[in-house]
């Protein structure tokens, strides 16, 4: 399928069919998108990458004058990771998904895939991650496309300059997954409009939301599927999950995460309902929102959940603030903070919603023959009708797998094969 789509694209052919490797068949096993998203790819179906180069973590200080509260003492720069080649090679910038940093599981996987394919790789935390907000955001308020894109470009230019003497770069590529894919689209556009452009050659968007606002609605709803009373019932939910885990592993220790099929094993033993799985996914996003809202609030002294005139220190008990922050949804952030900050006489609330969608730049996106979409037809962050619009924008440059949920199939050998070919061929 990948070969067909890629081969069919002859206009500028950013991906020549040079690679002789046959694409392995796509046989991802979970048709239930919740299971796919939570459990991921079973080990025997994963792509295998022989090299053992560990990513090197480095730090970038962008705002040396910035005073960082002692409570964030461990953030003395933006943490990023590099996987470099010894000879000349393309360089791929990878942007993390919601709440992900350079060491997140999917980021490391993407780094391995692309490095094994022969590229230099730089893994950049998501602008929604606390580390990015504290050290690399110009206004501590992530989520506004143009604004985040200019923050990201500042980072990329700084990294490009820094690595100039260390590696030889033949061209610049760009990738991102989930929210990071959404960012990548806006970064590509912002870059193209600048004079000092990096000039991205190949851009791959993995499981992007179409409209940030609509995906936020979907994600906020997930939490309540297995948690009708919201966060009030969280302790009960976690206790139930703990009891089930304990019961499922009654003859052994259940917390041995060393097994790479731990999640699959736990899933097979516990057989959780779709509602519980949806809540699990919703909770993961909720924790990201909680971190984002609190970090943004503390850094901006906005007095939203944390008193603006209180010191944030590593010894400050935070339970009361966490109890509030974990009850706030992405929508609360949007309505209370985002609209207040970004709406004005010329930009209405509805404008902000419209501008948070890839549809807002669809004309430009549809003309870019170097920007590709990779997603799944059952991606849970897409609202009804979003997939059709995405495919409509990217046309023959879209690769849509029949299942995989949200990022669940990224490790599948067929998908990793596609990514390898995209950046190497």
């Amino acid at each position, binding site marked *: 399928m990948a070969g067909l789509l890629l081969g069919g694209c002859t206009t500028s052919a950013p991906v020549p069919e040079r690679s002789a490797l046959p694409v392995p068949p796509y046989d991802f096993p979970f048709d239930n998108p919740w299971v796919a998203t939570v459990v991921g790819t079973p080990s025997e179906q994963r792509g295998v990458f022989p090299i053992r180069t560990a990513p090197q973590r480095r730090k970038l200080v962008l705002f040396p004058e910035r005073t960082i509260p002692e*409570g*964030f*003492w*461990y953030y003395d720069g933006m943490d990023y990771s590099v996987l470099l080649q010894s000879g000349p090679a393309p360089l791929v910038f990878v942007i993390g998904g919601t*709440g*992900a*940093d350079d*060491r997140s599981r999917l980021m490391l996987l993407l780094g391995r895939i692309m490095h094994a394919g022969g590229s230099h790789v730089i893994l950049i*935390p998501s602008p929604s*991650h*606390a*580390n990015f907000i504290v050290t690399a955001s110009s206004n501590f308020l992530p989520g506004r496309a143009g604004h985040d894109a200019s923050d990201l470009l500042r980072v990329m230019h700084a990294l490009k300059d820094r690595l100039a003497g260390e590696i030889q770069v033949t061209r610049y590529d760009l990738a991102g997954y989930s929210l990071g894919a959404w960012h990548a689209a806006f970064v590509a556009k912002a870059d193209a409009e600048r004079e000092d452009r990096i000039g991205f050659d190949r851009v791959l968007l993995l499981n992007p939301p179409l409209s940030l606002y609509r995906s936020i609605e979907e994600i906020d709803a997930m939490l309540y599927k297995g948690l009708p009373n919201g*966060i*009030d*019932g*969280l*302790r009960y939910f*976690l206790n139930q999950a*703990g009891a089930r*885990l*304990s019961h499922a*592993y*009654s*003859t*052994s*220790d*259940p*917390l*041995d995460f060393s097994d790479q099929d731990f999640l699959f094993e736990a899933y097979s033993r516990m057989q959780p309902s779709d509602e519980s799985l949806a809540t699990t996914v919703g909770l993961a996003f909720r*924790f990201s929102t*909680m*971190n984002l809202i*609190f*970090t943004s609030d*503390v850094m901006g002294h906005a*007095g*939203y*959940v*944390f*008193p*603006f*005139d*209180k010191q944030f220190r*590593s*010894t*400050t*008990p*935070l*339970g*009361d*603030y*966490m*109890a*509030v*922050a*974990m*009850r*706030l949804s992405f929508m*609360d952030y949007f309505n*209370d903070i985002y609209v207040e900050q970004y709406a004005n006489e010329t930009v209405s609330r509805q404008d902000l919603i419209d501008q948070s969608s890839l549809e807002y730049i669809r004309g430009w996106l549809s003309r870019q023959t170097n920007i590709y979409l990779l997603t799944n037809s059952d991606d849970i962050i897409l609202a009804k009708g979003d997939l059709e619009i995405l495919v409509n924008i990217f046309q023959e440059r879209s690769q849509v797998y029949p299942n995989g949920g949200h990022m669940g199939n990224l490790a599948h050998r067929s998908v990793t094969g596609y990514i390898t070919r995209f950046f190497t061929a």
Partner: protein
Amino acid sequence: MKHMASRPACAACLVTALLGGCSTGPAADPPVTTPPRRQIEQFVDAREQPATVVNPLAVYDPFEQTNRAIYKFNAKFDDYVYLPIVDAYVAVTPEPVRDSVSNFFDNLGEIPTFANSVLQGKVEKASPTLFRFMLNSTIGLFGLFDPASHIGLKRQDEDLGQTLGVWGVGDGPYLVLPILGPSNLRDATGTGVDFVALTVALEALPSDVRDDILYDIVVWGLWPIDQRYQVPLRYHSTGSPFEYDLVRSFVTKARRIQIQN
């Protein structure tokens, strides 16, 4: 203290008193701050609902400020001392050697696991543990290899803290121990006793073994290095400003599950 059962309560009180003594006392007057826009009253009636509903991740933690300070100390210790040593260890040893080192110490760990399985009356854990120890200590060359796992005998993990838990001793206050990390009063007591028992056991070794420099290197050098090497967790890798709270909740929950199993 209300969670503690009576038996070890005296020792527990003593430790608590000691810890209480070194926790930072209340400051003179906390500076008055402006209430934030969003507060808990907007979501739940904090007077009506139990604290566990208001903050679902709450854990009994009366020494929070001290614990938080030690948490930061541990993170710094990791950064400046522990992890650089572990990294150097990884750099100079090939993986099979490190695996064997881990196997060796894990094999010694079967002894407390066996003892505590017996104390908990868990035959289904005691017998495979005993068999593992015998097999790995002999065919596995003093525990350097782990043939027992290859025949499907999985390693169990029991310690005195779990045994006390099985006997009905509550968690007690949450504690962050210097270098050792998150614990609670019951488990810290268990760790202390386990450590004393181990020291006594090591004393029983012939003196020409204990006087050997290699012995000191293994027990006081290699062991702690291997302990850290085996734990992949890195401080502040959650990306959450609430990491202390999240870890506290997770560790507490995980220990409850370990005690049940």
